[in-house]
């Protein structure tokens, strides 16, 4: 496991140590420093094994071009290795500077790093994980409670809401997501129509294509795709923005100014997304239907009037089943994003972790809730 040192190390003359048996001298040369000493340090053990036991060895460093603390450590290692063989090292020929450096290193004393804190055994690990999960769940409940108890009174006194922040967030989360959501749902409408159209054509059933596109798009595809795109785009940005504010102590600054971070940072985002996501979903539905009907008309020669008639004959419940999910998804995405942001403690790496976690969690919950909705609606016969 030998890593290649950086190119900058190539400019050093490697440190060398040669044993002159006839005079009993260890002759050092080269750069005895951090960048020149690596090779010698690896071979030191082997090199000194040729020095006879119980001998008196003189260290000659006249040809050493540069010595730093790493070099001084090396000299001490040479001494220790020789001592282990019963030999003694005479360092009197070292220059004053070198002596001082070695003294400095010796003065510091014990240099072996303290043992790392012991790792947890499996049982402790299970315990710790359980406690973590529980305290996480508790934190989530506290956060949820705080947001709800602060939002409800505000909703009864809407003039106290921070409308400017809300409007800004609606713009950031809503209007700026329009192009990507529109394009994706259009393309998925195209793909669904095309894939199912081929099969339906074999049975001569392409006339049912608009029904199928309508039901899939309105009930499932548009709300789900929109929520997933928004979770990746907006939920993550909430986590990153609030997380960074935690790292730079901006959240603490808000608290110290008696401004609730929940009221200032979380509630506007949650409300904004609850407004923006249903609007985006409606647009996504339109784009999905457009993509699907376009394919039915272009590829499967379905008369446009027939297609539109069949679409408008669909029960309205399909639209309502789809749209009612959007505000729920919005709440989940915004709350997870904000909560992950507020969970950041101190370090830059935490922000990255929280951002990733917010997206994964948001998408997980969106799909899970969608499944719950699907089962509930089918039981209700909607």
């Amino acid at each position, binding site marked *: 496991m030998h890593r290649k040192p950086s190119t900058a190390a190539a400019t050093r003359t490697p440190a060398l140590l040669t044993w002159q048996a006839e005079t009993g001298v260890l002759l050092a040369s080269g750069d005895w420093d*951090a960048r020149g000493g690596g090779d010698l340090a*690896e071979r030191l053990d082997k090199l000194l094994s040729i020095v006879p036991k119980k001998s008196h060895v003189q260290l000659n460093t006249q040809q050493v071009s540069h010595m730093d603390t790493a070099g001084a450590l090396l000299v001490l290692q040479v001494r220790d290795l020789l001592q282990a063989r019963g030999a003694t090292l005479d360092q009197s020929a070292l220059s004053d*500077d070198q002596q*001082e450096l070695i003294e*400095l290193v010796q003065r*510091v004393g014990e*240099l072996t790093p303290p043992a790392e804190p012991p790792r947890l055994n499996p049982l402790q690990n299970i315990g710790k994980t359980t406690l973590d999960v529980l305290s996480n769940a508790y934190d989530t409940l506290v956060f949820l409670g705080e947001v709800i108890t602060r939002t409800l009174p505000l909703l009864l006194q809407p003039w106290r809401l921070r409308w400017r922040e809300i409007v800004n967030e609606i713009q950031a989360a809503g209007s700026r997501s329009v192009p990507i959501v529109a394009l994706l749902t259009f393309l998925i409408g195209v793909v669904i129509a095309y894939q199912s159209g081929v099969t339906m054509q074999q049975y001569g059933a392409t006339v049912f294509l608009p029904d199928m596109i309508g039901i899939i798009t309105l009930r499932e595809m548009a709300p789900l795709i929109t929520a997933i795109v928004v979770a990746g785009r907006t939920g993550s940005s909430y986590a990153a923005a609030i997380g960074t504010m935690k790292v730079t102590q901006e959240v603490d600054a808000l608290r110290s100014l008696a401004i609730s971070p929940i009221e200032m940072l979380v509630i506007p985002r949650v409300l904004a997304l609850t407004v923006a996501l249903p609007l985006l979903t409606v647009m996504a539905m339109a784009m999905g239907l457009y993509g699907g009907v376009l394919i039915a008309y272009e590829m499967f020669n379905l008369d446009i009037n027939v297609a539109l008639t069949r679409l408008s004959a669909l029960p309205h419940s399909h639209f309502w089943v789809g749209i009612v999910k959007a505000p729920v998804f919005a709440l989940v995405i915004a709350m997870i994003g904000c909560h992950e942001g507020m969970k950041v403690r101190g370090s830059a790496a935490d922000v990255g972790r929280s951002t990733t976690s917010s997206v994964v969690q948001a998408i997980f919950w969106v799909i899970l809730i969608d499944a719950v909705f699907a089962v509930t609606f089918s039981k209700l016969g909607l």
Partner: protein
Amino acid sequence: MNHHTPAQDAPAVIEVHGLSNRFGSKVVHENLDLCVTKGSVIALVGGSGTGKTVLLNNLVLLRPPTTGTVRLLGQDTATLNLEQLQALQLRLGLMFQMGALFTSLSVLENVCLPLIEHTDLPKNLREELGMLKIRLAGLPADAAHKRPNELSGGMVKRAALARALALDPEILFLDEPTSGLDPVGARAFDALVNELRDLLGITVFQITHDLDSILHGVDKVAFLARKKVLAFAPAAELMQSKEPELVEYFNTRPTQE
């Protein structure tokens, strides 16, 4: 401890000639000259907005000046290629004002990072060297496995110093090393820097606002004003100066004497 003032004929390690820094139409430095000899401890002083940090960034090769030459350790930085610049950078140590420790690494890993990247020392020697720098910087051994967010402000400064010392730099740049430290800790830090200078023969160049450091902790003070180094002399001399900026700087601050 032998507190030797550097000899007059010591070689220059930092030579700045005709340096200018401009940001758009805003001129921060104009025709600035500075020459620092080996083994001295220098304080860079000046009011807010006089471009102390910009000058420091010029010197540590993080930002090239708009015009002018910077010679470090005898090499003209403008003529060096990337490899030579990197090699030169390894001979400089920089301690950031806020520490800039890598939060995902422990203190020992922070100090060992330059050793891992730029040397091929075996792991045990690397760790001993890392511990040596941690202890030299005045941290207890049990701080080695702590994360930066578990350290107090003073310990962060010391850990940052330990990382700056990792490769035994020839010039050590410190950005406000004593800011945020209590007076006792600040004096101890000054003493430590001077001791390291004496023991390792390094040149120390620090930005500071700490009047006690300026008066007692350094050999010479470079005073930035009017877009250049207005004065470069021991603090005692600067206090006698009649230049309005210097009078203002030294007289509006409460001294403890």
